[in-house]
């Protein structure tokens, strides 16, 4: 193939990142080296020329939700505001391998959302139509069309919740989560960003109403701006400043199977029976469940949820019956009352927050970093994250995406 350079296979990269010691001060300190923290650092450097940046990570980079999600990429959200930021994100995904010169294994294999009731049909068709109105690709498939697209799916009307159709976003798909984290880390590191792992932020340094840095397990670090990107733990960090964020943290479980010869080349989600599934390039099925209802910061959920998810999966895909589950795990999702994120300044000087992505965090990684970097660099929200400010809970301008998320909150 001509024209396009082959992106770097991470296994062939000589050095992905340095292991720097923290400097006493940075222009920007990003708290959390997950996908959003890393992409924020990257776009601060790339788009705004701000390279004196540290990304502080209490564990290992990409080790939180970034390393635990089910890697689905799509932009078929319901409301205009959400559609705009997720579609911008999907466009960034589509050029991300060139942008980072790094192989993130993006596979635009299509994402299907199934309808199991007349209510589902109406809501999913609503989303398809809204997607069209926002210039986003979307199709409605009748059961027979679905069966042609996904031959292993069970469309029998005899099951408890028959498949009545579904939406398809062909540009949706999956990417390799680790490669995305490593790609952003590598690119940011090359531009001079310090990624400092095993460095936990324990408190903030402040001067009156202004944040001046952070206290860490490796000493104080001064910062022109501090940008939180700690997902489910953002609310506990903000608590230290007396800021109570409207965030609830829940376990969200996922699993992989053993490796099987490929038989599923698209992503299938069912909101009604709480399962979503894809088959990764190595051959394992990757599945996600509905969230555990209780609040928790422990990265484990109830086994009951796993059992129910698999009962649902077998109803949809009888061929899974003998496939064996290899590993289950949980991430902690941070959910706002309207199931949309908060990206913007907090009511203290030089402090910013990016949280509340719920189940949408992975697919938003590029756009989230882009607009968060813009907000930090300019002090003003980008037009894409302007609707996602904290004050919407006061004004009532909510962006309610409960119905459009992959799982019901």
């Amino acid at each position, binding site marked *: 193939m001509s024209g396009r350079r082959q992106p770097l296979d991470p296994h062939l990269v000589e050095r992905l990142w340095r292991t720097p010691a923290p400097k006493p001060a940075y222009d920007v300190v990003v708290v959390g080296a997950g996908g959003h923290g890393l992409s924020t650092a990257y776009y601060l450097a790339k788009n705004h020329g701000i390279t004196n940046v540290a990304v502080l990570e209490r564990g290992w980079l990409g080790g939180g939700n970034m*390393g635990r999600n089910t890697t689905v990429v799509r932009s078929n959200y319901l409301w205009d505001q959400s559609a705009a930021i997720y579609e911008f994100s999907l466009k960034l995904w589509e050029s991300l391998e060139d942008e980072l010169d790094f192989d993130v294994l993006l596979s635009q294999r299509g994402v299907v959302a199934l309808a199991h009731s007349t209510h589902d049909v109406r809501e999913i068709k609503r989303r398809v139509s809204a997607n069209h109105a926002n210039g986003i690709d979307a199709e409605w498939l009748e059961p027979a069309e679905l069966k042609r697209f996904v031959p292993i799916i069970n469309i029998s009307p005899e099951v408890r*919740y028959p498949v009545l159709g579904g939406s398809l976003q062909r540009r949706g798909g999956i990417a390799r989560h680790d490669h995305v984290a490593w790609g952003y880390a590598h690119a940011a590191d090359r531009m001079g960003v310090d990624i400092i792992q095993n460095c936990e932020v324990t408190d903030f340094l402040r001067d009156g109403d202004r944040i001046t840095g952070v206290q860490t397990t490796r000493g104080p670090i001064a910062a022109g701006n501090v940008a939180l990107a700690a997902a489910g733990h953002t609310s506990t960090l903000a608590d230290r400043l007396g800021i109570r964020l409207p965030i609830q943290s829940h376990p969200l479980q996922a699993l992989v199977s053993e490796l099987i010869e490929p038989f599923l080349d698209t992503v299938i989600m069912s909101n009604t029976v709480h399962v979503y599934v894809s088959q990764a390039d190595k051959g394992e099925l990757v599945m996600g469940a509905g969230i555990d209802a209780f609040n928790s910061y422990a990265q484990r959920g109830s086994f009951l949820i796993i059992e129910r998810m698999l009962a649902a999966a077998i109803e949809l895909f009888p061929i899974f019956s003998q496939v064996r589950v290899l590993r289950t795990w949980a991430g902690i999702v941070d959910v706002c009352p309207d199931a949309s994120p908060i990206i913007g300044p907090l009511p203290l000087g030089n402090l910013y927050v990016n949280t509340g992505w719920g189940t949408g965090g992975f697919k938003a990684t590029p756009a989230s970093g882009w607009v968060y970097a813009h907000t930090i660099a300019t002090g003003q929200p980008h037009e894409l994250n302007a609707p996602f400010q904290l004050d919407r809970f006061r004004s009532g301008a909510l962006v309610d995406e409960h119905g459009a998320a992959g799982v019901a909150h």
Partner: protein
Amino acid sequence: MSGWRLAHGGLIDRSRPVFFTFDGRRLAGFSGDTVASALLANGVDVVARSIKLGRPRGIVAAGTEEPNALIAVEPGLALRRATEVELVDGLAVRSVSGRAPAPAIDETPSEHVWHHADVVVVGAGAAGLTAAQDAVAAGGRVVLLEGGHAAGPLPDGLVDAADFVFLPRTVAVGRFDSNMIVAHERRRGTPGANTAARDRLWHIRARDVVLATGAVERPLVFADNDRPGIMLAGSVGVYLQRYGVAAGRRAVVFTANDSAYVVARDLQAAGVDVVAIVDTRVRPGPTADAGGIEVLSGHVVAGTTGDEGLASVLIVPRDGDADRASPTVVEADLLAVSGGWDPALRLLAHTGARLRYQPSAGTYGVTEVPPRVRITGLAADVNGGVGAFSTLDPVWLVPAPDGSLDRHFVDLQRDATAADIRRAVDAGMRSPEHVKRFTTIGTGNDQGRTSGTNELGVLAALLGTTLEQLGPTTFRTPLVPIPMRVLGGPYRGELFDPVRTTPIHGSHVAAGALFENVGQWKRAWAYPREGESFDDAVLRECRAVREGVGIMDVSTLGKIDVQGPDAGAFVDRVYTNRFSTLKVGSSRYGLMLRADGMVFDDGTATRLADDHFHLTTTTGGAAAVLDWLEEWLQTEWPDLRVRLTSVTDEWAGVAIAGPKSRELLARLAPNLDVSAEAFPFMTVRNEYLSELPARIFRISFSGELSYEVYVKSWYGRALWDAIAAAGADLDVTPYGTEAMHVLRAEKGYVIVGQETDGTVTAADLGLDWMLSKRKWFIGLGALDRPHLTRPDRRQLVGLLPDDPDLHVPEGSALLPSGGLGTAGNVTSSYRSAALGRTFALGLLAGGRARIGSRVDAQVAGWRVPLDIVEPVLWDPQNERRDG
């Protein structure tokens, strides 16, 4: 062809030969063999090709840690390990090279079982049996789990012990909070199993858990350490003792601890030529009894040769570079290795117990166990570095003569080598989690049992750090792979989720109804007659209600009994409109909001007595509404003297709707004065109806003259049949939810969940008249937020396409005059018999002010213009309803 069956010995039954096929080859073994032991006995060296490099691989281990010998069992092609599949006559298996073929569908359900015990012992080896005996002796309920098949008969004290359950072929897959053990009992496909037997998933709540889970031996990491014939020493011993199989004829033992010496002696005693014991230690431990076999202490195996199997091993002194050029070459077809042992403690890990490197034991272990957990036997000895396990001198990486690392296999199943770890380190990775993800070590279906610790050892060696600095990567449930159908359990097909049916369900079935799922309910959707389309049936049903009389099963509506001195005050707080002034015997339509001011549910409240209300909710909202009301009552208003009781299933209900409904009701309830004056709209009467005691509400969701009759649910069927019989000459017509939706939409009545989606206020629906200005209600405080009072909010309007036959799909976006984005959406859209045309309802930005103008809907990529009209298209003066 190196393995062979000893003339005697082992726990197999030599009187019962068993025939099976492996990749089509017909082979023989004995009852008591596993596929793996039989393959070894038949001299099969190569059992698979490796997943990436295609290298020949043989059997390495005897248990769940086996990385290479994956097989697919015919005919369903279930993926298993050869070390776990017991031999039965006619068994047919094929080798699998890392990735399994898609297995066949197995529709046999599995069983879920809950069990409770004082003590659960995991592992029925010697220590497990002892622990079980002790627990039984102490009294109480005891469960003993054994992942494999029984090693022999149970000891006397256990065979007939009361309150003792022994579960062979049952593997613990996880330990969860409060000592809940989840275990998979294999019953399908086990020898002698009834074909109807279902696998079981046990959920055992244990007061105490005893882990007699043993330990897993570690391989050593040296060049070409993956050849068939290179096996774990302990497993070589297992094949010898348990199956009477010698894994080779000429063996070398390579060890870093004392435990392999006994294997060497046993091999020698069985007639295997054990050439040497290569011991990494200069000074072997006190339990290292070589029994006359030559010991090369302070030496290592630096490489091997061979084609398909092992041909020779290259032995060099451990320290002393000069000698590397000329290793001692020893011909051998078996190399038994022991790099040390790891205690099998994964059951501790899910609930957060962290394993740490214990230098004295040379492994990752625990110094403290969680409460109500005990470790015993080999697991405890290895964890604590007791006896032979104190003698380890770990060697994590044996350098190759040429300095290469790319044939130093760390994870055989993933084909991952020390060179892969080196690449990760060079790339800047320091965390074992990164290295695991980069190399994929430990992610195979053997769950990294033989590779996890070695990965960390190699990593530490390459980083020049110690293992104390490197935590193990997190262990994940399940401990061994488990089929999805076993986790799904019996919940398949119609059992997948409860099906709720009304007492009248049988009548709908008999009438040929189509059903729709509404939550867990099955509701009659429409009643198409022979040769009639769904759409025509709906039109006919609608016409019957508008012109004659129809009946509908409304039993699914949620019903809440509210009683107590403060019932009026309570109902006032939960609905937006006022109820405390409602007269006894009257009903009122009510709206509930969430705390954020958005519409939550609707229904009617009827005052049965001063201190007694009967509330109805939407079908789908019943449980959520009761939860919501209880939450407010219990957490915010404990001072209110009110009791809430669900009576949803107590009452069956039938709506009788249409201009002829009064006549029909009069026939059924001759004692009831049904005149408009005596029984006005929104009132309730208690009366016998066809001899059934009934509550009759004059209420309407169709916009017609209408009644809802409720009886105790066990009379539901009788009520329906009585109404149908009494109205036969009036052509009384059953109508389903679809006709109901059309009728209410013609009338502009909203459905919560269809016209609303959690973002819609009462004012948006034109229901601001229902917001009391003289009292507080849930959600009131949110209503004056700036965004909720904007004039361009999406508001309910009626929508008419120019073409009276064009049906605009529900969900269609309403478009702004230009640019991207949406201005609203079509919430409901139907063909109307009464209006003689199609019509729709929708939510449109600033919609009320736009009535009389036009808006475009997006239909299949086209802009379809619609007239914006009032949402009430039928009987706006309510003359039919109230007459």
